[in-house]
């Protein structure tokens, strides 16, 4: 048996440890699905910022894909501002499937429409177009390069329409304050 001070120290450590556990249980909880969707919406919208010119409808389509829809397939250039080359249409379809499997939220088709509705009528158009592309990707009998070509043509037809009529240019979204920069080794 050690000196009385040892027992006291041990008891104190136990108490502090238990207190930390209680605090953790009281404060850490999963976010509700609605809040999660809003936050992911904001995150994906942030990926659409290209030198202060966000592409809102693309961001909404990306979120719909993450939530379980196929609208991402509508993106002719994949998610905006990415460092890599644009994905092939087949890859975009795979990405949408992977996002669905990720189980972020089992959003219904109604919810997909609701999310896209937030991004204005342009988002609705993108949704319908994305569904058409997604449906084609699933149902076409073409294979390999032919399949990719077929999907690519349908997917890019929307972008060409946009370029022609000039009515669907991305809207400006306030970019807010400068980004926070990383900490150690990631200092501003």
């Amino acid at each position: 048996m050690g000196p009385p001070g040892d027992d006291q120290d041990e008891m104190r450590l136990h108490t502090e440890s238990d207190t930390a556990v209680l605090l953790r249980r009281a404060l850490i909880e999963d976010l509700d699905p609605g809040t999660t969707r809003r936050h992911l919406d904001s995150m994906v919208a942030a990926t659409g910022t290209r030198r202060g010119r966000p592409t809102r409808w693309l961001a909404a389509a990306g979120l719909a894909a993450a939530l379980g829809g196929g609208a991402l397939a509508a993106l002719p250039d994949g998610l905006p501002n990415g460092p890599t080359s644009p994905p092939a249409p087949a890859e975009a379809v795979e990405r949408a499937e992977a996002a669905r499997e990720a189980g972020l939220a089992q959003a219904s088709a109604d919810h997909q429409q609701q999310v896209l509705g937030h991004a204005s009528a342009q988002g609705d158009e993108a949704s319908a177009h994305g569904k058409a592309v997604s449906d084609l990707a699933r149902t076409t009998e073409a294979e390999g390069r032919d399949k990719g070509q077929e999907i690519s043509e349908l997917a890019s037809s929307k972008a060409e329409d946009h370029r022609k009529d000039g009515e669907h240019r991305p809207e400006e979204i306030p970019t807010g304050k400068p980004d926070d920069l990383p900490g150690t080794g990631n200092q501003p």
Partner: protein
Amino acid sequence: MPLGASFPRTLAEARRRRPDALAALYRDLAPAVLGYLRGQGAAEPEDLTSDTFVGMVRGLTRFRGDEAAFRSWMFTIAHRRLTDERRRRGRRVIDLVPPDRFPEVVVSDPQGEVVGAAWARSALAGLTPDQRTVVLLRVIADLPVAEVARITGRQEGAVKALHRRALASLARTISPEPVS
């Protein structure tokens, strides 16, 4: 739950703006980030959580490090967002523990007795702002002393002392409440 071995790949895919990877990072850290901001008494903890992850998205290409560094980086962003919010609102830190900002959860203490979220609320309100920040970064963010010292701009010894005093103070406030 840390991402572990899958973290490097998830990070790389998140840098490519892949929604599933961004969501994986979010799922991993959002509960703790929100808990930290709630514990700090942020006026709009959910909004600040969102701001924190938007900051993450915008800064991903500049981030360098492993998962532990990433976690620390995220709480650095959260802490700065909180500081910005307080500056905008012009409120003192000690005033920022509104009673309705805590989840209505019930937790059990080690003796099987039950204490509510009311305990966390009142107990944290009784700490000094420095103690609250340190104990939340250590306990909720689960950051090592060195990282807490860096974020708060204090010496590691000071962080340890603040942490110990904060936990001791919290422990004294545990008062079981019967569940009705």
